[in-house]
């Protein structure tokens, strides 16, 4: 009987451990982790082309996530994309001449908004608009441009396409 009891306790502990692991995986390693963030402030940015940018895409500075995309609208008069970003309040030291770009993680990864800090002494406040923006770079466009431009052997295309990229594809500190 005592053995049976120890089995029951062991089973309980095992189930607890399993559900802890499941809870951890589900909330800490998935997009759910992004919902559960502290107080944020909003920034807006206009882009002529946002590529495949999606809601909840990360906003990063120096490759580190500081917020997410909360809204994407098309402005009817200007026909530009108006993207709203929610930035963590802890990062309220962003100079108001910082530039926003839509980048791709890796060669083929998901897209995100990268903020490149400027040098202004004034900081962004809630609801400000980021003036300096750079639209998404379309891989297809690059390839097309390149093919028309030089008409070189298509076999060398991937190697040539990479340096043409205006910014390093990944702002990864380890590769710099």
């Amino acid at each position, binding site marked *: 009987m005592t053995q049976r009891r120890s089995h029951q306790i062991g089973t309980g502990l095992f189930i607890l451990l399993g559900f802890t692991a499941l809870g951890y995986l589900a909330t800490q390693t998935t997009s759910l982790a992004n919902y559960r963030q502290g107080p944020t402030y909003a920034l807006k940015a206009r882009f002529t082309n946002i590529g495949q940018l999606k809601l909840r895409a990360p906003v990063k500075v120096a490759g580190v996530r500081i917020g997410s995309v909360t809204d994407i609208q098309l402005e009817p008069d200007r026909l530009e994309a108006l993207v709203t970003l929610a930035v963590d309040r802890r990062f309220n030291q962003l100079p108001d001449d910082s530039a926003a770009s839509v980048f791709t993680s890796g060669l083929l990864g998901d897209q995100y908004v990268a903020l490149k800090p400027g040098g202004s002494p004034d900081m962004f406040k809630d609801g400000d608009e980021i003036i300096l923006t750079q639209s998404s770079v379309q891989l297809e466009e690059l390839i097309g441009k390149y093919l028309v431009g030089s008409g070189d052997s298509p076999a060398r295309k991937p190697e040539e396409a990479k340096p043409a990229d205006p910014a390093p594809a990944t702002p990864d500190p*380890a590769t710099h």
Partner: protein
Amino acid sequence: MSEKRDSGSRLGDGLAQVGALGLFLLQVLAAIPRSLRYFAETVRQIFFVGAMSLVIIITCGLFIGLVLGLQLYEVLSRFGSTASVGTVVAIALYRELGPVITALLFAGRAGTSITAEIGLMRATDQLAAMEMMAVDPMAYVVAPRFLAGIVAMPLLACIFNALAIFGSHLVAVSWLGLDNGTFWSNMTGAVDVWTDVMNGVWKSAVFGAVVTLVATFQGYTTAPTSEGVAYATTRTVVYSSILTLVIDFLMTAFLM
């Protein structure tokens, strides 16, 4: 007794086995309502198939994570995409590697012991004795182990995945110097709860059913000799591994 006839009828034997396994599944399902009165037995079996498999699952999970971290960092750095190490590790684990490797380890650790245990019960007339005491071995012996497999396997797979994520983080961040925030933010940006994490959970529940079904079937129908039990144990590992991989492909291709 000619050799040719034996190999010729092997396909037929295989089909007969699959059919018998299907019938056995129906019997097990029918016995589940009756097995609810032996709930304590199911709890005990979760301990045996689940908790007792923890050591191997934790060890293998950790090392798979370490190796994945190393390999992916190396490969992804060729494309300048080391930031996605966490993402690739997580998606590969949640969708495929976690459920499948856990199922294979589970077949070797828990499946074999289920077959050997039930086979020995058959060989020593314990199953017949239960029948004679008006206790249905389907409900008392087989169904609790089947249910325990379905419960324990997803939990084991989650523990395996958590350890593997930990291992890959250890290699990529602590050892190779990838930025911690990059590792996590890329992962959380790309991994979805339903299509990745829960997908793997459903899969491993099915694998848990497959492995314990094969294991209980082999034990229940074993030739009642020590040699028969030995063969049945081997067959459990072989058949449940194959069946797991086939069903994995079918589920991935048609259901997910």
